[in-house]
């Protein structure tokens, strides 16, 4: 009984034999191809990492895609109550009431933020500033005993269901427990920087609040919410001194499909307050931009890849020229032309794949080293992994290079005339 295994397999095996017999040539092909594939891998890795980083920030500030967001400003005071009453205790809807608050010493005005819009380069009057102007090299003397102005977000539930704030330190608000007497406050990174720099004693005033006495909050944690301005998060029911204010802003976050939206719409319409949520679609909008950029860079690296392909082609043609007798002989013993072409293609494809493996390994290793060297303290960098998309791009580039570089030599090999070569 004759049972033959597949033709592709024999092309691969003979191709491997050819590679083993001509290691130096294979190496030369790989060298010429390496930079091209590495460029493709690097571009794809960069695009994937950038996409992940930027998208993550957008998700923090806007919300997961599909989240529905409604902003309510300047409605009648009872609209806040309506919303709060409706969404409290629900997992599929959260309301944020946003007010300005001053945290710090009583009776002082808050430190002004610096020109970059950050507390880090804040200028203060008085002796502190004097210390700063003595010499350029002198460190900025932190002012002591002032207050800091933050945007206070009073939340009815866990906003992190909709916006994945990253943990920095301490803990996040807990819901569903008995409200604490002293409101627990979670700061964002920007606010934490301000408190860290200025060491303000903690008492809190809320602008425009009816109750004029200060509240003493307890800071329980810091999160990264993607905002460049100081923010503080607090459970709405822990703000006992809170009474509705006319100039409070309010934002409602809703899950994609929730009956709450219908309920709120009708309740608010009854009070003549317009309520029309929009859907967060940042990922899609954003992906379009990024894919355009990636296309541009892939085009550039494709050019580098083409130069590598020319190298493979050159080596491939030279090899076929050297192997005229071998191919004529293979044809003489009955190897079909298609299989001969397959053998040559298999060799360049394997070369392309080997090069891709080398380039992917190199890129992944380089990323690991970069993370080790620079990733200290930056949670995003520290958690950075080699994106699988880059590996896929590298393999595809290797295969394309193998086909492009092997195509012409394969046709040459298949066309070698037996009679002329074998004539004695």
């Amino acid at each position, binding site marked *: 009984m*004759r*049972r*033959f*295994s*597949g*033709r592709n*397999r*024999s092309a691969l*095996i*003979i191709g491997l*034999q050819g590679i*083993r*017999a*001509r290691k130096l040539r294979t190496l030369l092909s790989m060298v010429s191809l390496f930079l091209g594939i590495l460029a493709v891998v690097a571009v794809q890795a960069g695009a994937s990492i950038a996409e992940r980083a930027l998208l993550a920030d957008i998700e923090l500030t806007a919300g997961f895609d599909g989240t529905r967001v409604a902003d309510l400003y300047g409605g009648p005071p009872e609209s806040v109550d309506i919303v709060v009453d409706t969404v409290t205790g629900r997992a599929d809807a959260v309301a944020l009431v946003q007010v300005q608050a001053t945290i710090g010493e009583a009776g002082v005005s808050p430190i002004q933020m610096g020109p970059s819009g950050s507390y880090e380069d804040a200028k203060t009057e008085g002796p502190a500033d004097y210390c700063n102007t003595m010499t350029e090299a002198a460190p900025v003397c932190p002012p002591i005993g002032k207050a800091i102005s933050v945007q206070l977000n009073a939340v009815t539930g866990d906003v992190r269901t909709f916006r994945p704030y990253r943990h920095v330190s301490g803990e996040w608000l807990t819901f569903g427990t008995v409200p604490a007497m002293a409101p627990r406050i979670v700061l964002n990174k920007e606010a934490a920087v301000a408190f860290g720099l200025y060491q303000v004693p903690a008492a809190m005033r809320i602008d425009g609040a009816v109750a004029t006495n200060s509240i003493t909050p307890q800071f329980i944690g810091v999160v990264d919410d993607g905002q460049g301005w100081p923010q503080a998060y607090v459970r709405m029911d822990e703000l006992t001194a809170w009474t509705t204010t006319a100039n409070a802003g309010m934002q409602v976050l809703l899950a994609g499909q929730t009956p709450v939206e219908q309920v709120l719409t009708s309740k608010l319409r009854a009070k003549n307050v317009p309520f029309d949520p929009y859907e967060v679609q940042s990922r899609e909008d954003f992906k379009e931009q990024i894919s355009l950029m990636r296309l541009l860079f892939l085009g550039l690296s494709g050019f580098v890849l083409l130069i590598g392909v020319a190298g493979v082609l050159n080596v491939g043609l030279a090899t076929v020229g050297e192997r005229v*007798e*071998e191919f*004529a*002989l*293979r*044809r*003489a*013993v*009955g*190897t*079909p*032309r*298609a*299989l001969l072409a397959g053998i040559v293609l298999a060799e360049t494809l394997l070369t392309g794949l080997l090069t891709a493996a080398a380039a992917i390994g190199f890129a992944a290793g380089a990323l690991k080293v970069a993370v080790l060297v620079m990733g200290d303290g930056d949670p995003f960098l520290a958690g950075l992994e080699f994106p699988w998309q880059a590996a896929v791009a590298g393999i595809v580039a290797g295969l394309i290079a193998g086909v492009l570089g092997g195509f012409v030599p394969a046709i040459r090999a298949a066309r070698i*005339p*037996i*009679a002329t070569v*074998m*004539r*004695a």
Partner: protein
Amino acid sequence: MTALIELNGITKTLKGQEQRRTILHGVDLRVEAGESLAIVGRSGSGKSTLLSILGLFDRPDQGSYLLDGQEIGKLAERRAAKLRSSHFGFVFQRFFLLKHLSAAQNVAMALVNGQGWLPRRERRRRVLAALDQVGIAHLAKNRPAKMSGGEQQRVAIARALVREPRILLADEPTGALDTETGTSVIETLLGATTRGCALVLVTHDRDHAARMGRIHDLTDGVLTQRVRA
């Protein structure tokens, strides 16, 4: 009775550097299974051209080529490749061994056809049998560079025999060997005819030609059988 091979009025014109030259002018030939014949003639008389038509490397311009009574003179390349692997074995003046492969691997090479490879064990059995048939089974693992000319030509013969062909075509197989080695190579080739394989030998050596069942002269593009004295 149909012959194994029957050529009728084969002509072949090759394009030289300046003009076209008709190499074969109506060649007729019958070959039966198991017989041996020699083709002799001056250098450049067209012996290799005839052999390349017999072996389906090249196609005749005119005339008919019957194999087992079937016309194969105008066969498509794919079917011709199949026939080359199933019916023909080739031995050349140069050995055409692949230097990066061992003797056994060089022989196994002829077992690759359009369908791929035989299973490993079957492949091994056939390769060793072929090497044994030409008397060099002990050299199976050696590379060509480590072998003498006679041994290399034996590997080439084993490669030609491994598929158990029905026709063995040999184009001056002893041209690169000394007399003694050449004679033993001819013995080996003749050995294959005892198994029913036909042998067509192109040679310049009278003694070798005389060992064949009959001798044909190729002169001016026409083949004539030599009458034995």
